[in-house]
């Protein structure tokens, strides 16, 4: 059953949403459930997880046994199609003088990057919203944790998140009845937990957007959409039809049974069921159109299949095209201000942040020759470490924290799974080699950090004056420089991981921060190119994602984040999009928009 049947548009919509990922999908669902007529415009192709996901496919059914290639950086079966750090015909550049090229990941497909992600769903904590007040760096958010926490509750109930309340400072708990039970840890995760007890690193149940049990559609829909019988009916049915995880298949492939969260499995189907949503795929938005009164009247896009230019009109425009694409559209839009649309503050394209990332792993002798056990689990982490040194930054030499993701053990074999034999059993062949393979397979474990980067003036994107993409649209040019905070944080990660590994009985040599830190853009958590704030002079939007300069233009993706806490942005993008969509409808009712 295709998600989209006709390529049709109406002459006028209430709202146009550019992008179909976390922010766009959430806005579309909330607006459509409330009777707004919505047009969603997606640059990539239609994508149908229920028929396209390679759920049980094995490596021998794939070229190169499923190994990664330049066109499929996360392997053949990764959900991302027409995407990656390079997209054919859609270049980007890096500015002279940059310290390391920024890698820009894009997913040109319905649902965007929500089709491929770790599903790790951590709430930002109270300190995260007051970060500048705590350490004098960056800027505070124009809202507090109390403002957003009811929306975190709603998002967790709507999409389904497993986890536990661990009571750790700045890693907020959820109210009773919101979370689904977390799956039990695997062997390596238990061993890590034990090592963490010794080294002082708390390891607790992970929070991921994966159903560990069926959803109680009736109850949830009633709580989430009081006074909206149609929304209750649609959501109760749709939630009840989602299957819980059957503990196989990596989440990175997507999920045909809709156990994990993707915009294409959780948000777009019920939004379409309202009859209020039209979707145009393969449509590359060039700019927002501004009327003589300074208000947005619609968007100008290129129909990629016919290469025709088209204008779609609406009372409100929401950009949710992903952090960098949204700022690119603003910079490419004609406005009174030469610097680009909604850019009287000059902040569009600035404050670009990714997460600090680095990893370290090792062979763990105690995991050798264990009895075979099915460790596929939830297709991602079951445990993690929230940042545990919140009050010790003065001693640490870097200002913000990180969380730790971890994994190992008996995963589905890949081309590189038994590389350990190159060192542990380098000269063997015949039956002895196969015995050694059995001994060492799954006997490894690794840690990866995801840390908060502080915005700085050297990390930004702007239009490249000399290059356009195949659609004739000027492309982005990036500039990057890590500060000492990030480099020192990466080094702390390496040392922490080495301690944990040694405690587990492995051997590890931590790298220096500068050698360890991964490339800018490689963690794919880029946010912040159109930050929200208290004042129009210092920010692009208010706390409701509404641009200060154009009242009927909203930005509902990672671009509005004023800081990039270590907790991975998707859950917060979802919460902000829901909250802002409610505000938008209120303002429309009041006649302010």
């Amino acid at each position, binding site marked *: 059953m295709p998600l989209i049947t006709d390529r049709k548009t109406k002459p006028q919509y209430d709202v146009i949403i550019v992008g179909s990922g976390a922010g766009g999908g959430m806005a579309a669902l909330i607006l459509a459930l409330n009777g707004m007529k919505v047009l969603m415009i997606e640059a990539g192709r239609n994508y149908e997880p229920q028929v396209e996901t390679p759920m049980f496919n094995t490596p021998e059914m794939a070229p190169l046994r499923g190994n990664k290639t330049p066109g499929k950086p996360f392997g053949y079966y990764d959900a991302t199609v027409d995407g990656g750090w390079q997209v054919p015909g859609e270049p980007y550049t890096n500015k002279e003088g940059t310290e390391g090229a920024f890698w820009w990941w894009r997913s040109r497909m319905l649902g965007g990057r929500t089709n491929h992600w770790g599903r790790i769903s951590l709430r930002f904590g109270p300190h995260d919203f007051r970060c500048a007040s705590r350490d004098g760096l960056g800027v505070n958010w124009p809202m507090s944790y109390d403002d957003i926490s009811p929306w975190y509750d709603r998002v967790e109930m709507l999409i389904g998140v497993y986890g536990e309340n661990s009571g750790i400072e700045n890693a907020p708990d959820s109210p009773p009845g919101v979370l689904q039970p977390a799956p039990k840890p695997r062997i390596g995760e238990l061993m890590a937990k034990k090592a963490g007890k010794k080294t002082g690193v708390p390891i607790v149940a992970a929070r991921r957007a994966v159903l560990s049990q069926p959803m109680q559609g009736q109850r949830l829909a009633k709580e989430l959409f009081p006074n909206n019988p149609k929304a209750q009916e649609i959501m109760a049915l749709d939630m009840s039809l989602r299957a819980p995880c059957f503990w196989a298949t990596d989440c990175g492939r997507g999920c045909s049974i809709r156990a994990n969260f993707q915009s294409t499995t959780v948000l777009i189907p019920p939004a379409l069921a309202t009859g209020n949503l039209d979707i145009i795929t393969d449509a590359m938005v060039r700019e927002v159109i501004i009327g003589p009164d300074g208000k947005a009247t619609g968007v100008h896009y290129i129909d990629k299949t016919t290469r025709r230019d088209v204008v779609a009109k609406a009372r409100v425009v929401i950009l949710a095209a992903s952090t960098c694409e949204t700022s690119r559209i603003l910079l490419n839009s004609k406005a009174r201000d030469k610097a680009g649309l909604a850019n009287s503050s000059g902040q569009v394209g600035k404050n670009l942040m990714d997460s600090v990332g680095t990893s370290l792993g090792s062979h763990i002798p105690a995991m050798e020759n264990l009895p075979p056990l099915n460790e596929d689990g939830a297709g991602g982490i079951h445990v993690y470490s929230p940042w545990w040194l919140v009050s010790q930054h003065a001693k640490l030499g870097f200002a913000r924290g990180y969380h730790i993701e971890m994994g190992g053990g008996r995963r*589905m074999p890949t081309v590189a799974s038994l590389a350990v034999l190159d060192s542990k059993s380098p000269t063997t062949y015949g039956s002895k080699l196969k015995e050694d393979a059995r001994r060492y397979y799954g006997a490894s474990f690794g840690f990866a950090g995801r840390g908060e980067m502080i915005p700085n003036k050297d990390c930004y994107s702007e239009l490249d004056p000399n290059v356009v993409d195949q659609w004739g649209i000027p492309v982005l040019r990036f500039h990057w420089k890590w500060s000492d905070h990030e480099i020192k944080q990466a080094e702390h990660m390496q040392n922490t991981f080495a301690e944990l590994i040694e405690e587990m009985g492995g051997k590890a040599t931590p790298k220096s921060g500068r050698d360890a830190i991964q490339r800018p853009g490689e963690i794919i958590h880029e946010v912040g190119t159109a930050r929200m704030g208290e004042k129009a002079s210092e920010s692009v939007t208010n706390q409701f994602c509404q641009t200060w300069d154009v009242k009927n233009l909203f930005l509902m993706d990672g671009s509005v984040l004023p800081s990039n806490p270590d907790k991975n942005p998707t859950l917060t993008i979802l919460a902000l999009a829901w909250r802002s969509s409610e505000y938008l409808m209120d303002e429309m009712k009041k006649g302010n928009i």
Partner: protein
Amino acid sequence: MSQKPTSLSRRDALKWFAGSSAASAIAPAIIAAPNETEQAPPSFPTRSAIYDPNFAKPVYPWEKVLATEELKTANSLADIILPKDALGPAASEVGVADFINEWISAPIDKHEEESEIIRGGLSWLNTESFRRFEKRFEELTPEQQIQIVDDICDATKSKPEHHIGAIFFQHFRSLSISGYYTHSATWKGLGYVGNISIAGPYPGVPDELIKKLGLEDVA
């Protein structure tokens, strides 16, 4: 939408990997009326075997380089490295030589380096077989084959005249292991028992194993 498996020329495949036509400015054509009603575009209007593969009909978009004779040698050596025994099938039963052929033929930098080592090494192996026994490697008796393999299986101890063979063996063994254990027919012997659906909660680690590993306090 049907898509025939095709074989691209190496040059085309390289272009494909390099990704993309050069940036070009397109003159905007007509601004169309926004109330058009058209059919949905074909499901996969931009499908390419690299960026947007069809999982049901995988395409191998490059020519494989090894000749039939080379494949015979490769199969024979792979079966010595990973023979049929109680822990699973022989390498030749799970397509290891074909995987190596596909791997070294891929137009990706790292693989091209590997290609020189593997092809050169297979020839070295046959030259050595002729020098010692006047036959190709795959035509030797098992004892004769093992005699050569034992001379090249340890690059740190091999004689200078066997050094090229030893470097080749290291690479060939690594690729054989990769190809062998990525075939699901080998997983039982390896001890991978996943990729099956389980109803109810995830079972976790059995109590006796938790006890054996001393993990009671964290389980």
